[in-house]
């Protein structure tokens, strides 16, 4: 037979142990382990988040290497719209699960399609940070930003992020997601090389074909001449 109220005393022993050791052992407190973070610790700016405001918190504070909050458009440096990678193919617009992306293609004054977006808007209030747009983009033009200060006092329109605000340089991307950015660059370079090789091969092939053709023509000519 167990002691009268033994279960209750056991439970009270557990809570007493927790009470006392919460002062001594960091293990017990709810959030304590930040060793997995890139910087190995929780920045004070995040710990005191609403109290401390700071630019460095707004932009570059990354939570993990895969953290994703809101998409951004990449450009390769210099004047953003000259080097923007997006060609306005609208794949992400179609694939976006909550349908929060609006894209219009850009045309020059002759009505000719130039490969860049004229309008590229993303609605913050609808976006659910799922990263599908990043995965379906064939041009590595859209990636996830980890910026989280997206709230605005402006209800109407303030939550619609415009193209120029979405544009971020590749350097910035390297800053917030170093590993992912490096991998992506590598992949792009490989693709580019493969493309170049293919182009070269195609060029050589074309050249060879042309030479062959020329040779044939010459042959025919000589033939004709001979006749």
């Amino acid at each position, binding site marked *: 037979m167990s002691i009268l109220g033994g*279960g*209750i005393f*056991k439970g009270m022993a557990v809570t007493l142990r927790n009470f006392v050791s919460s002062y001594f052992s960091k293990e017990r407190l709810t959030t304590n*382990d930040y060793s997995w973070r890139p910087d190995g610790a929780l920045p004070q700016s995040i710990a005191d988040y609403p109290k401390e405001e700071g630019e460095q918190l707004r932009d570059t504070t990354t939570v993990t290497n895969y953290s994703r909050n809101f998409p951004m458009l990449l450009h390769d440096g210099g004047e953003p719209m000259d080097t923007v990678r997006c060609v306005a193919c609208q794949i992400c617009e179609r694939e976006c*699960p909550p349908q929060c992306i609006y894209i219009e293609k850009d045309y020059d004054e002759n009505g000719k399609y130039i490969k860049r977006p004229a309008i590229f808007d993303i609605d913050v209030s609808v976006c*659910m*940070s799922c990263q599908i747009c990043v*995965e379906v983009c064939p041009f590595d033009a859209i990636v996830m930003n980890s910026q989280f200060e997206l709230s605005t006092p402006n209800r109407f329109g303030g939550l619609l992020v415009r193209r120029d605000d979405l544009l971020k340089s590749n350097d910035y991307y390297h800053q917030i997601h170093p590993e992912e950015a490096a991998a992506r660059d590598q992949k792009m370079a490989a693709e580019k090389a493969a493309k170049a090789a293919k182009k070269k091969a195609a060029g050589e092939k074309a050249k060879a074909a042309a030479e062959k053709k020329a040779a044939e023509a010459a042959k025919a000519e000589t033939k004709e001449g001979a006749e």
Partner: protein
Amino acid sequence: MSTAAAPNYELLQQDGLETSLLEVSMGPHHPSTHGVFRMDVKLDGETVVDLQPVFGYLHRNHEKLAENMTYLSSMPFTDRLDYFNSMSNNWAYALAAEKLIEVEVPERAEYLRVIMAELTRLVNHVSLVGFFINDLGALGTPLMYAFREREKILDLFEQASGARMMCNYFRFGGLRNDVPEGWLERAGEVVDRFPSFLDEYEQLLCENEIILSRTQGVGKLSRELAVSAGVTGPMLRASGVAYDLRKVDQYGIYDRFKFRVPHTDGDVGDCYDRFMIRMLEMRESIEILKQALAGIPKGEIMGNAPRVFKPKPAEAYGRIEGPKGELGFYLIADGSPKPYRFRVRPPSLINLTVLRDMCLGGKIADAVIILGSIDIVLGEVDR
């Protein structure tokens, strides 16, 4: 409603004293309905004489949405069904879609899927037990301990997928990305520390006289009714049927792991059994996790499935043993990039079929803990 007959409570008139039943609408804003669930309860004093569950406050017609978008685009929405277990929801959907497009999943991805699903089970069960004891009135102490442990696992999810709850991590034919360096070791640490926490939890809860007398004999569910009502998951095993899809279907690579399925004799099937079965299942999950973490190979994590695809017209029903029960996805493809029909078989909703049968005749406090022991998430009930 069908089988359980409500006692015939007419307006009672005795010696000029006129009394009537007290009708209370518990929910949709009530601290312990686990979301926007509503129970229309008729009370005779404190005794429940009738109870009607009312659904639909969180209905967003997920199925219709999914019919209007591509297969891949539905993946993030499955996270939002049962927002505690986004990883296993992903898996169920991926399993159904992989039947349509027939791709091979690489070995490493299969192992990671098992690891993620079992971590999810730990998250779900540990917080369910916390919520359950909270429903019993324990002012959140077990819940806080549960959330402390859950936090560690959510940290792992965040490192792997970039998000804590809406992980969106599984893809058809594999996973979205490999886990970062050192992740497996950290997961191992969390898994190794978990049993000591469970010991403490058991010491705190399992012998407590108040918990014993509050939960034992409350909300009995017979084996026959449980099977007929399609109750699945820990609730079914608490009613005495050792039916676990990990053993029955052996989807993924569950045939490689050695684990046991805790169940009862089926003679009681009350709230205490449902609570204890979950406690025991966590230990088995830890066993699976240890084996999986030890045996995980290196390699690719993504098969050669295309991101956007058009499966041939076919039907597929994929189901997994989710933490709450059998989670099934029924897909009909018609050759277009969008599913023709997308159906979720929500365990939470179907387990609620027996809510009324279990609650009748109990006290109002019993109704609350019975609902807690069913373990529902309204995102999944209403979809």
